[in-house]
């Protein structure tokens, strides 16, 4: 398993243009084996794809992370130094005060590693969005003593914690996320339970995110949630609220894995075969705006990683104008098949 990001390894897929070229050519080239995503959604009369009411503002605070997961679409890692400036964070607060969003979603990297994380959470929670999410990789809560009190901090600000845990057993988790990640994740979940997260009646929401640990799609979300709940309770006395299943999209390090393991073509075929026209109506890019560390705007976190900025005259926080942004067409490419396969996929799990 790699210990550095693609960027740190100077890998050709560190360049988003290389990834987009790869997704446009080969099996998706004109006359190729598979239809492009644009061709596919044209058949279901969903083109152009346009935003609905903005509900979720997702802020990527930076790409630094204490883990180097094999499937990471962000290409995050300890060697990534990109980080949102205080000025950009302040700008986000101004926009949040004026906008109608009901969900603020902080992600990374590991957002907790941002030096202004606690300040920002305290300020943003004063604004009072209905659902304030922090996406935590769990192991960060155990990485250093300075993070040990994060469960209490989250509780004080009524944060909705959404945590990655690809499986309820060690082997699959560690193969995807690194040796020792499972045992540290279990300890972190126990810390969160201890302050009330995931416990019945506490009102402290703790959700888990399941990513398949390989070149296959997630199963039924409810069935997997039942398996996770049973196993985590039985083996570690852990409680949580919901499980979100997220399909791995063929970009960044997951794309690297697909190519290296010679699974790319079959995986893409699987995504195309599983295309669900019902999912297209609920894809997250229709109610989400993603903000990068440097203040640019994207339809989703995946488009951010491919540097597909919103197709609008407004592309940066400095020019933020929601009315203009709502008139845009959503940028698509073949990676979008990941969000429309089977029961669909989003940062909030299945969409159908």
């Amino acid at each position, binding site marked *: 398993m790699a210990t550095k990001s693609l960027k740190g390894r100077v890998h050709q897929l560190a360049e988003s243009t290389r990834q987009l070229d790869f997704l446009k050519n080969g099996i998706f080239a004109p006359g190729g084996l598979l239809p492009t995503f644009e061709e596919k959604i044209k058949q279901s009369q969903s083109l152009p794809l346009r935003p609905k009411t903005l509900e979720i503002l997702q802020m990527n605070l930076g790409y630094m992370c204490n883990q180097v997961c094999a499937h990471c679409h962000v290409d995050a890692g300890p060697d990534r130094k990109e980080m949102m400036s205080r000025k950009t964070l302040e700008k986000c607060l101004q926009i949040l005060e004026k906008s109608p969003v009901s969900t603020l979603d902080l992600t990374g990297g590991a957002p907790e590693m941002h030096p202004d994380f606690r300040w920002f959470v305290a300020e943003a929670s004063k604004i009072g969005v209905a659902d304030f999410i922090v996406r935590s990789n769990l192991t960060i809560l155990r990485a250093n003593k300075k993070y040990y009190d994060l469960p209490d901090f989250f509780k004080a600000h009524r944060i909705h914690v959404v945590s990655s845990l690809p*499986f309820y*057993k060690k*082997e*699959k988790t560690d193969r995807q996320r690194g040796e020792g990640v499972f045992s540290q994740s279990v300890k972190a979940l126990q810390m969160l339970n201890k302050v009330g997260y995931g416990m019945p009646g506490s009102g402290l929401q703790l959700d888990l995110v399941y990513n*398949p640990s*390989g070149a*296959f*799609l*997630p*199963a*039924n979300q409810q*069935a*997997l949630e039942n*398996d996770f709940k049973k196993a985590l309770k039985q083996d570690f006395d852990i409680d949580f609220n919901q499980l979100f299943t997220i399909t791995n999209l063929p970009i960044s390090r997951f794309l690297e894995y697909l190519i290296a393991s010679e699974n790319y073509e079959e995986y893409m075929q699987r995504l195309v075969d599983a295309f669900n026209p019902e999912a297209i109506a609920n894809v997250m890019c229709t109610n989400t705006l993603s903000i990068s560390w440097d203040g640019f705007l994207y339809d989703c976190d995946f488009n951010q990683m491919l540097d597909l900025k919103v197709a609008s005259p407004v592309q940066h926080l400095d020019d933020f104008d929601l009315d203009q942004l709502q008139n845009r067409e959503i940028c698509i490419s073949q990676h979008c098949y990941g969000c429309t396969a089977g029961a669909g996929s989003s940062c909030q799990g299945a969409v159908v």
Partner: protein
Amino acid sequence: MKPSYYQSSDLKKFKNISDWSPDLGKKFFDYYNSVFEEGALSAREKSLIALAVAHTVQCPYCIDAYTQDGLERGVDKEEMMEALHVAGAIRGGASLVHGVQMMDVYEKRSM
């Protein structure tokens, strides 16, 4: 002729068996899909049974399909291998239990 009797790409063509017999094909696939729905047994348990049977009947298409199905359902390798040993035990047992017949014939014909 194809270079092998088995082509992995043929798995995707399974539904084509209906082309030459649409009514029977439809009946079969309706039945097949109903069998694997959640019931007294979970779809996950049925997937593991299918994997074991796939090895018993030595169907490479079924082995491919139900290994992938198991992965998607969160079945881990220990569970898959245990299911195979159930198949192996029954298959081996089916041979060995005939040893009783062998022993009976042997004893009957011997002084």
